[in-house]
Each structure stands twice: as structure tokens, then as C-alpha cells.
């Protein structure tokens, strides 16, 4: 283990901006994509449910 403190870990030997900029954006992208997908899925499902209950009311 080459890190002596948390601060050193985040400083990344002076390259903190670049390293955390890379990892941060990657993490963000990999988090946002599934969230957007979840929303998309939920939107379809709710609209389908709404349609379905409308159908049933008509019958």
C-alpha cells in the first residue's frame, strides 16, 4: 500500500484533477445511464398500465 493518508490518496501525487476527473466522469456516466434506463422503463410501464386500465373501464 503506497498511500499514507487520505489526503495523499486524493492528491494522487499532484495529478488529482486528472485522475479523479477521469474516474469521476466515468463513474458518473456509469451511474446515470442505468438511472435513465430505469426511468425509461418505468415510463413505458406506467403508460401501458394506464392504457390497460382505460381499456378495462371501457369494457
Amino acid at each position, binding site marked *: 500500500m503506497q498511500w499514507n493518508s487520505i489526503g495523499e490518496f486524493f492528491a494522487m501525487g499532484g495529478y488529482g484533477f486528472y*485522475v479523479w476527473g477521469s*474516474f469521476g466522469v466515468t463513474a458518473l*456516466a456509469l451511474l446515470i*445511464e442505468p438511472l435513465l434506463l430505469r426511468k425509461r*422503463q418505468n415510463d413505458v410501464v406506467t403508460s*401501458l398500465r394506464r392504457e390497460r386500465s382505460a381499456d378495462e373501464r371501457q369494457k
Partner: protein
Amino acid sequence: MSNKIIHWFKYGSPQSFYPLAGKMIPWFWALAAIFCVAGLWIGFFVAPTDATQGEAYRIIFIHVPASWMSMFLYIVMACWAGIGLSLNTRLSSMMASAIAPTGAMFAFLSLWTGALWGKPMWGTWWVWDARLTSELILLFLYLGFMALQAAIDEPRRADKAGAILALVGVVNVPIIYFSVKWWNTLHQGASISMSKAPTMAITMLWGMLVMALAFWMYSIAVALQRARAIMLERERHTDWVKYAVE
């Protein structure tokens, strides 16, 4: 034998694939998470500091896997699209459209992390190097595919048009790569070259491989999830969808 064929066709239709995908997704998420933690651990705590690049080299643990994925996903996407075009199977085309955004995202991440790496190492965000340039063009090809599909309202047409574009792109990607490489070597002397990176320590290689696995599992999970949403949207008027959303 015949049993197997029936089996295959059974999962080739959206209506049986939908629940199957639903069951598979959590497993791929779990695998992705495990590999990701392992990869990050190797990347930050096992791998030593690089002699010439200091800590900045740690970007490699996402940069290289992201680059690999962006290229790999394009081929997978084109395969699905080609199958969809020739066999006229809806599911294959849906998989192709489901992969594209994730592939584009990895291409973007490759560019982004590469740029953030280039600034401290080369002193500039960008150079017109063969690999960088062809990665940029790969991103354009992804975006072209997505824009074309988005611009066509009828899904069937969008699938086929996208498939042709993807296939043409697959023929072109190697041509583009080699042309750019040749162009660059003719122009540029020995100024900067990525292949001059230090011979990689074995731990580094492991870290990259594990992270690549994590990204791969992530891609499968996300692609399946997106494919499920696409199935519902496109087939919303069929009976199986009505039961599927119970």
C-alpha cells in the same frame, strides 16, 4: 437437435426473451460490481506508482478498458444488426439499437480519459494521433447510427437502415484505422507515441483486464435493460406486452 432449434427460436422472440432478460440482468449487475471493486482495488492499492508518469498513469485502468469496449461493442452491434437484416429477426435488431448508446458512451469515456491523461503527460489535451483520431471517428459512427435510427419513425425501417450503416461502418473501421495510422506515421516523426508506454507490470495488466471484465458485464446488463424497454415501446400493442407489465 430439433429440440435445440425450437429452444433457440423460442428465445429469439421478444416475448420469451423479455422475462429471461429480466432474470439475467441482476446477475450481470452483481458480476459487474464485483469485478469493478476488484479492479479498483488492484488499480489503486495493489499497483505501484509508475516511475515515469507518477500517479497519473492510474487512468489506464479505465482508459484502456473503455477503449476496448467501445471497439468491441461496435462489432457486436454490427453483428446483431447484420443478423437482424438477413434473418429478419426483431430481437437482433433491438439488441443492436440497445448496444449503440452504451458503445458511444464508452467511446466518449475513452476520449475523455485520454484527454485528461494527455494533458499532464503530453502537455496537450489532444493530438492528431492515429489511435486518437480513429477513436473520434468511431464515436461519429456511433452517433451517426443513433441519429439515423432516431430520425426514422417506423421501427422496422429504422432497424434495416441502421443495419446497413453499421455493416458499412464495420467494413470501414479497419480501413479508417490503417489509413489514419499510415497518414500519421508519414507526417509525424518520433514526437509522441503511445506505444512507447513503459512495459506494463503484470499487476497493471491484471487491473486492466479485471476492469475490462467489469465494463463488459456492465455493458451486457445495460444493453439487456435497454432492450427490454425497447421491446415494450415497440410492441406495446401486442398481447404479450399487456401481460408482461402485470
